[in-house]
């Protein structure tokens, strides 16, 4: 948590902390070293001082010891009253017997009965010094001094207070200084960060950061500005290219729309032409037909057999021409009328068509199979009926087998793709080279009267209807075995 806080802390705070920690760390080390050094020096000074004091006492005690004058020795010791740190003192005689003593009023240290070795010893709460008394090279006694460590403790306390004060003062100074000085580093970085943010917020690459120093930060800002300049250039290039592209797309779109419009227009004109032409053609044709009928009826007795036969042929041909023109009219109408798209159940449609062709199917001896129920599609109901009508007639006609059948079904290749419907027969089949030709208008592969005749417009009409429903139609066939027509229609959504 503290580490995380440090990581996410603002750079200003980090810099200030850095300075404070570095200063504090250095101060701690310096203080510890100073305190230790001072403590050691203080101890050694104290030892020296007390030993010197013991020596003075020793020298002043020679006569008293020599002449057995305890009073004088005690007098000498009482002079130690002035040294407040001396708790107790004693003089021992030549044989180590206690000769004179001094105990500071208020303290009650035990004075050793016998002198110890000549040396200074730090005990828990005092410095104890034994010093020999020598007169003319002869040891005549020992001096004992006990110096309490209150002064040292006080000194250490004072040191601690001093160090604490120095710590506090220098900490405050470091804080003030670093708070001011950190700006030298943090300002350019913050400025850079602000600039970067406003660039990314406003997507304005013309903004530049201000170079305020010649150091690494200054170079960083320069590099940043350089990058911004490059981005700005690329951005403007990109904008130009984008504009160009948009302009071109617009041009192409306009052109396409124009072409499409033209195509639409020419298609319409073609359909109109076919309609008008066929409509206008019908009237004189009806006249020819009527008059040839009149001729046959009114002048039958005046015509010989050959003449009658020729007139009958004329009548038949006009009837045929009328059928052709009707087909053409129907075909052209398919391109002109709007489709009434709706959800259409194919089961009903197929049943109706099969019903309407019932007699013909029976005569031809063809069985119609629907292996499984068909789905619903989105389509024009009448036109879809036409599709099945034409395909069933087509399949019924071109069959030379003894047991004739037609199968109507569908397959779904994958989810979402429109279903593929098929109408299959076991008829004569179509050679592969004619797969395209069968859909051409008035194109017949067989003689006019073979396989029941017909105008040759049925499959063309089917193709037109399927394509107007945005579907596809194609044929597969094995010559002599049968033909299958496939077409796609959009599936009718159950919910609509």
């Amino acid at each position, binding site marked *: 948590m503290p580490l995380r806080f440090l990581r996410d802390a603002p750079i200003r705070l980090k810099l200030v902390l850095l300075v404070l920690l570095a200063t504090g760390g250095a101060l701690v080390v310096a203080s510890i070293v100073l305190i230790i050094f001072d403590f050691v020096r203080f101890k050694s*000074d104290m030892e020296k001082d007390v030993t010197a004091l013991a020596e*003075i006492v020793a020298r002043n005690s020679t006569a008293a010891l*020599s002449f*057995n004058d305890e*009073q004088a020795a005690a007098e000498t010791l009482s002079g130690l009253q002035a*040294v407040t740190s001396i708790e107790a003192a004693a003089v021992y005689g030549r044989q180590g017997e206690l000769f004179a003593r001094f105990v500071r009023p208020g303290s009650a240290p035990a004075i050793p009965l016998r002198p110890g070795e000549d040396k200074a010893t730090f005990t828990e709460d005092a410095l104890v010094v034994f010093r020999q008394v020598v007169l003319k090279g002869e040891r005549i006694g020992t001096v004992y001094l006990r110096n309490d460590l209150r002064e040292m403790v006080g000194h250490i306390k004072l040191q601690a207070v001093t160090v604490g004060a120095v710590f506090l003062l220098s900490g405050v100074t470091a804080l003030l200084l670093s708070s001011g000085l950190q700006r030298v580093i943090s300002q350019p970085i913050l400025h850079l960060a602000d600039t970067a943010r406003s660039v990314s917020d406003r997507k304005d690459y013309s903004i530049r950061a201000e170079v305020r120093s010649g150091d690494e930060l200054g170079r960083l800002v320069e590099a940043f500005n350089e990058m911004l300049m490059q981005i700005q250039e690329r951005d403007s290039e990109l904008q130009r290219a984008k504009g160009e592209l948009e302009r071109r797309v617009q041009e192409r779109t306009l052109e396409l729309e124009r072409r499409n419009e033209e195509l639409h227009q020419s298609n319409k004109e073609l359909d109109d032409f076919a309609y008008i032409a066929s409509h206008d053609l019908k009237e004189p044709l009806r006249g020819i037909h009527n008059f040839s009928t009149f001729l046959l009826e009114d002048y039958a007795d005046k015509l010989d057999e050959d003449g009658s036969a020729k007139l009958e042929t004329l009548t038949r041909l006009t009837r045929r021409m009328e059928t052709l023109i009707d087909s053409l009219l129907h075909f052209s109408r398919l391109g002109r009328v709007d489709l009434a798209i709706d959800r259409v159940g194919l089961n009903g449609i197929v049943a109706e068509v099969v019903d309407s062709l019932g007699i013909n199917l029976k005569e031809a001896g063809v069985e119609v199979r629907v292996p499984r129920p068909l789905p619903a599609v989105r389509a024009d109901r009448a036109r879809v009926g036409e599709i099945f009508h034409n395909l069933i007639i087509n399949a019924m006609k071109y069959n030379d087998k003894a047991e004739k059948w037609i199968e109507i079904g569908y397959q779904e290749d994958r989810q979402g793709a429109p279903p593929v419907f098929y109408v299959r027969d076991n008829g004569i089949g179509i050679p592969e080279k004619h797969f395209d030709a069968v859909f051409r208008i008035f194109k017949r592969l067989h003689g006019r009267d073979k396989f029941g005749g017909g105008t040759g417009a049925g499959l063309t009409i089917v193709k037109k209807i399927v394509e107007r429903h945005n579907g596809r139609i194609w044929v597969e066939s094995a010559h002599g075995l049968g033909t299958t027509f496939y077409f796609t229609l959009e599936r009718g959504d159950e919910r609509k």
Partner: protein
Amino acid sequence: MAFLKNRALGLVAAILLFCSLLTGLPGEALAQPEASESDVKAAFLYNFTKFVEWPPAAFQDASSSFRLCVLSDEAFSRSLQAVVEGQEVAGRKLTLLRLGSSHDSKSCNLLFIGRPEHERIAEILASMAGSRALVVGESTGFLKQGGMINFHLQGGKVRFEVNLKAAEGEGLKISSKLLRLATRVL
């Protein structure tokens, strides 16, 4: 700190010295030492040699021994003999001489005149003039007669008084430490 301490120490030393120089000794009674009076006096007599400086003229030459002369009874001589056996004074061999009344005492460096001789003190002292010897006695009025150090008993303890002028008159220097212990200094 150390500086202050040193100063304090110096001050204390000065005070100690001052005290040791000026403080008179009231001489209250202390426990009687176990040793006999003559043993104590013998030890004191020898110890005086450590606090008194003789002029070079007091000796014939550098190799001359230090002559400690006694005019007293046999017992004291034995006590003194025990104390000074094999001792030296200021690098000189110590020679103990027990003087008869006829002996020349002028060659002595330290002369002890015991109580048995107190009748002759004036005479002996007169003969010692110019001998540069420290003359010690144990009789009342010894200093008035010209003696230098005189033993006396105070509260059952052996103490001494000093006639500094007499000693200085013979060129002797008596240590202030010794003077400090004297019950009286003339």
